[in-house]
């Protein structure tokens, strides 16, 4: 794990397309920085996201995958016209309140 998360390994991986780099040293690497500078606005936006704006927004739960799947199904059902959107979401919310593990 230490080998595959080292600065050396991750910087080489980033140059080969492993985005976005998690180490500050990779963003400072001359080869990577030169490449990223050609992507119009990307590095500046990425730094704002990783330093100031981005967060894992969803509420951690050990079975959040089930929560998200039920939520997704409601959006898809509504889109496909099975039922009105607010009904689909209300039914999903009721299901999620029952299924989410609150431990």
């Amino acid at each position, binding site marked *: 794990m230490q080998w595959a998360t080292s600065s050396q390994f991750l910087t080489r991986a980033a140059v080969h397309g492993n985005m976005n780099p998690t180490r500050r040293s990779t963003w400072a690497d001359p080869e990577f920085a030169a490449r990223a500078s050609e992507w119009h606005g990307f590095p500046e936006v990425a730094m704002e996201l990783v330093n100031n704006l*981005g967060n*894992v927004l969803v509420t951690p739960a050990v079975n*959040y995958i089930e929560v998200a799947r039920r939520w997704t199904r409601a959006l898809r059902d509504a889109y496909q016209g099975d039922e009105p*959107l607010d009904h689909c979401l209300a039914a999903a919310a009721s299901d999620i309140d029952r299924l989410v593990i609150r431990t």
Partner: protein
Amino acid sequence: MAEVRFLGCDNDVFCGHVQARATEFEQASGHKLTVRLLDNDFYYANKLTGYLGGESPADVYMSGPVLVWEQLGLGFVRPLDEFAGRSSFDLSDFFDRLIAGHRWSGHFGDGLGHGPLLGIPVNWESYNLAYLPETLAQAGVDVPRTWPEFFAAAKAIPAHVPGVRGFGQRGAEAWHTVYTGFATQLWSCGGRDFDPGGSCAIASAAAVDAARTLSDAIRVAGPADWTSQGWYELAMDFAHGKYGLLVDSDHYVAYFENPGLSDVAGKVRYALPPAGPGGVRRPNMWMWSMVMNARSAARTRRGSSCSGRPAPSSSPARPCTGI
């Protein structure tokens, strides 16, 4: 020679890089590295018990927020604090938010940022606005700064630019469909998944309004095959100029700017995602991370301990974390 088993998925740059450099690890550590890559869609469904448990479990595996929470509940996560605290790990080199996003107590209602370290991030994504200026110009619209502007601009594109849809959006039957662009829109517009009391809030007025705005816009300007759009299809369609706007994973830049994969390399511009009322921007975030399996047998297999085992004389010295 001990064996270290790595589990990941195909169609992934990081996992491919691990596989390609396995010999380097073996020469440096004196251990055999076995890399097993599963189908990408299967992997993200997170049904990995057969690979993380049993007689020959993976020692380290790929995961990330949402996925690792489930694996923690199943007993497949070994906290990494004892390893990551070593100076050789240089944890301070990682962006603070990425490390904080991997700390969790395991209890519903507890936020991230506190508790044991569940993984080490190897890449991350947040959700920026990628757009094609030429397409926006043809449609006669400016770069959208707010979500109402975003959907208005998106709707103008198919009306003025033949063969191009307004915006890309995931719609496949997968958990991450709600995670990327939609969550960024929803939270920025005042919605959320659970209220502070722990009750599901996806049917709140703000959440219904955000979902209705999105659903209506998809019909007019989104993917014609929205319900089959996964992340890869979405990225490739944008890379082939099929949309003018996209709020989704910013790591797609690796595809968009690769002339071998993209028709729009050099033509894409990147901006912050649109803001909600009052200028609020709340982009979601995700990380792809290495996790140590609590069921790993590596520490008990013969010769697997790094301590006291010299590296082969022909290999460079490399500190080992014990896996």
